[in-house]
C-alpha cells in the first residue's frame, strides 16, 4: 500500500496532502446535506422523527426517503393526468406480478365477498360486488410502471375512487385511504388522500372490458396510474379513511411510501 501511494503521488508532502485531502473529502458535505435533508423531511411530514438518533446509513436512508415523500407530495399536481394510450398499445399478455406465484393468488368467491368501509366515513356499510357493479364506470388505458423498472400498458374500467368516497361520505381532509387485501401474508398499502382523489384513481372491476381476472386482482383492485404498481393493491377487502399512517406490505420493507410517477 505504501509503495503504491508513493507511486501515485511522487514527491508530495504527506502532511500537506492529508490536510488537503481531508478538505476535499465529500464526507463533511455529505453529513451536512444529510442532516439538512433529514430535518427538512421531518418538517415536511411532521412525523416527529428524532434527528439526534445515532447516525447510521440505514437511518439516514430512511430519513431521506421520508424527505422524498415530501418532495413528491409537493411535486404532485392533481390536475396532471397520466398519459393515455390507444387500445392497440395494450401489452399482451399483460404480466402477472406478485411476491407469490399465480397458483397462490387469492381465489375469492364473488358471493362471499364484501368490501368493508371503515374509518372517517359517514356510511360504514359493506358493499357487495353486485352493488358496486351498479356504480358508473370509466375506462382508462394507461401505463402500469413497476418498482422493478418494467412497464406494461393495460385497460382498466371501474368507478373513480373519489366518486365512491363521496358516496360513502368520507372525510376527504383525512390523510390516507388505507387498503387491506386478501393476498397471502396480508397485503396492505396506504394511499395519500390527494392521490386517492385524483380523477384517474379507480376502483377497478374490469380488465380489457372483461371482469377482472384472478391474476389481476378479482374482485377489485385499486388502479392508481400516478403511482408505482405496488401502490395499486389487488384483491381488496377493505378500505379505511384515516389520519394515521398505518404502513404497508412493501412500504414497511423499505420501498418509498409515496412512490409517485
Amino acid at each position, binding site marked *: 500500500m505504501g509503495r503504491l501511494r508513493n*507511486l*501515485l*503521488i*511522487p514527491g*508530495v508532502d504527506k502532511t*500537506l*496532502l492529508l490536510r*488537503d*485531502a481531508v*478538505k*476535499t*473529502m*465529500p464526507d463533511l*458535505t*455529505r453529513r451536512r*446535506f444529510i442532516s439538512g*435533508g433529514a430535518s427538512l423531511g421531518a418538517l415536511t411530514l411532521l412525523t416527529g422523527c428524532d434527528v439526534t438518533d445515532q447516525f447510521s446509513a440505514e437511518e*439516514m*436512508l*430512511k430519513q*431521506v*426517503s421520508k424527505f*422524498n415523500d415530501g418532495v413528491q407530495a409537493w*411535486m*404532485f*399536481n392533481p390536475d*396532471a*393526468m*397520466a*398519459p393515455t394510450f390507444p387500445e392497440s398499445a395494450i401489452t399482451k399478455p399483460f404480466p402477472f406480478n406478485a411476491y407469490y406465484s399465480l397458483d397462490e393468488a387469492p381465489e375469492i368467491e364473488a358471493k362471499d365477498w364484501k368490501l368493508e368501509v371503515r374509518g372517517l366515513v359517514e356510511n360504514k356499510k359493506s358493499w357487495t360486488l353486485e352493488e358496486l357493479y351498479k356504480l358508473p364506470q370509466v375506462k382508462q388505458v394507461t*401505463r402500469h*410502471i*413497476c*418498482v*422493478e*423498472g*418494467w*412497464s406494461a400498458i393495460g385497460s382498466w374500467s371501474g368507478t373513480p375512487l373519489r366518486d365512491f368516497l363521496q358516496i360513502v361520505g368520507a372525510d376527504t381532509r383525512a390523510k390516507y385511504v388505507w387498503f387491506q387485501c386478501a393476498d397471502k401474508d396480508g397485503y396492505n398499502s396506504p394511499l395519500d388522500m390527494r392521490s386517492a382523489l385524483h380523477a384517474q384513481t379507480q376502483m377497478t372491476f374490469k380488465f380489457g372490458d372483461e371482469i377482472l381476472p384472478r391474476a389481476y386482482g378479482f374482485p377489485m383492485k385499486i388502479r392508481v*396510474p*400516478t403511482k408505482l404498481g405496488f401502490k395499486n393493491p389487488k384483491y381488496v377487502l377493505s378500505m379505511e379513511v384515516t389520519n394515521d399512517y398505518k404502513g404497508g406490505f*412493501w412500504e414497511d*420493507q*423499505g*420501498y*418509498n411510501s409515496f412512490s*409517485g*410517477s
Partner: protein
Amino acid sequence: MSSITASDQASAKATPKAATKAKVIQPAWVRALHWTNAFAMVLMIMSGWKIYNASPLFDFTFSDSITLGGWLGGALLWHFAAMWLLMVNGLIYLALGLATGRFRKKLLPITPEGVLADTKAALTGKLSHEDLTKYNYVQKLLYAGIIVVGILIVLSGLAIWKPVQLQYLTAMFGGYEAARYVHFFCMAAIVAFMVVHVVLALLVPKSLRAMIIGR
C-alpha cells in the same frame, strides 16, 4: 510549469499574490466538487446496477458483489438519496463553471482539426502533459462531452422517476421505456469515461496530485 496561460499572466499583473496563484492548477472549489461528484457517482452507479438487475434491459445482470443496497428496495433508497448529492453538487459545478468562465476558458474552443491532431498525437504517444492548466483538444472534447452526458443522465433519470408529473420531459426522451435506455447508455458512457479517466490520471500522477492538493 514552463508555460503560463494568457489569463494567468493577466491575473499576475492584477494581484501581488500572483506568483503563488499562478501555480494553482485546480482551484479548491473544483477539487471539492470533483471528489464529491466522484463519491456520489459511485453510489449512483452501484445502486443503479442493483436496480437494473430487478428488470434487466439486456441479456446480462451485474454481479451482486459490485452493487449497493442488498436488495431492490435498499438500492432504490441509496439511489434516491445519492441523487440529491449528485444533483446539488452538479448544479453548483455548472453554476460556478459558467459564472467563473472556467468552462469557456478551459473547454472552448473545440475544433475538429484540433481534436484530430491531438488524437493522432495521443495515439502515437506524442501528446504533451507539460502544462496541466491547459487541456488538449481530446481532453476538451471528453470533458465537455461528459458534462453533457451528466446532464442527460440526470434528466433521463427524472423522466423515469416522474413519467406523469414530468411527462413532457419523459416524452422528450421518447417515452418511459426509451428513457430507461437513455439512462442506461449514459451510465455506460460515464463508466467508460471513468475507466479511461482513472487510467490516465494514474499514468500522469501529477494530474491526480493537482486534483488533490491543487498544484
